[in-house]
């Protein structure tokens, strides 16, 4: 069962992932890191934000396990860690599938109702069904 497989995800980590993703600056940082590692200075460049402010966001991302530090002692480049994102995505995907099941039933119901309405209109106008 899909649910049991998903059960291995640590809830705390999932919470941390979603909390980290809730901020637009942090999402932008992750988007930047998706195209390759970068130093704090490089990451701060596109933002109208001080380096300490960016560092604060990076700390949240690091605590959530979304970002790790590289070995280069001088630059301490940050890297994207994809796994927690994949897990968060898996949870959302599961959620999406559940809703999609409902909505596909709703599509069918709406189609039936539309057909029913057309028949009623035709009957009212005296058309042959």
């Amino acid at each position, binding site marked *: *069962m899909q*649910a*049991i497989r*998903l*059960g291995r*995800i640590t*809830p705390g980590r*999932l*919470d941390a992932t*979603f*909390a980290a*993703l*809730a901020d637009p600056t942090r999402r932008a940082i992750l988007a930047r890191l998706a195209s390759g590692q970068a130093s704090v200075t490089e990451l701060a460049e596109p933002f109208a934000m001080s380096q300490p402010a960016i560092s604060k966001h990076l700390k949240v991302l690091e605590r959530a396990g979304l970002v790790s530090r590289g070995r280069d002692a001088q630059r301490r480049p940050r890297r994207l860690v994809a796994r927690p994102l994949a897990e968060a995505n898996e949870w*959302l995907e*599961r*959620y*999406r599938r*559940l*809703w*999609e*099941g*409902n*909505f*596909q*039933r*709703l*599509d*069918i*119901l*709406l*189609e039936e*109702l*539309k057909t029913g*309405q057309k028949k009623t209109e035709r009957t009212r106008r005296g058309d042959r069904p």
Partner: protein
Amino acid sequence: MTNTATLTVATPTEREIVITRTFDAPRALVWETWTNPNYVRKWLLGPEGWTMPVCEIDLRPGGSWRYVWRKLDGVEMAMAGGYIEVTPPERLVSTEKWGPEWPETVNTMVLTESAGRTTTTLTIAYPSREARDAALKTGMTDGSERSFARLDNLLATLV
């Protein structure tokens, strides 16, 4: 039937979940399927094997609603809430509570129509991130199939 509709699920803030889907039907009809108990019980069922024997909707501000689902093995689940704002056929704001251990959410449904198609935007707001996380955790940590079924159903039926 053309079905080019895509469902999107987003977490724009730390305490919200937003679900968007377009239906190939006019707005008045879509509104009807979300608010008329005879229609709601036909589609708002969550995973396979569940039916909705109780679907009570008192559609007015201050009115209440109550859904009870039943699985083939007899397991039942209930969810209830109240209506805050009822503006047919475009906007429905309601509260929802799964049970005492679940946080109450405020759910806002907005329907917009374009060229005979209707987009439903459903925003589920938890009182806080902690509350949203708590709701997630309850289903995620238990590990039994039944609690996952509970979670499945909760997720599938947040209206």
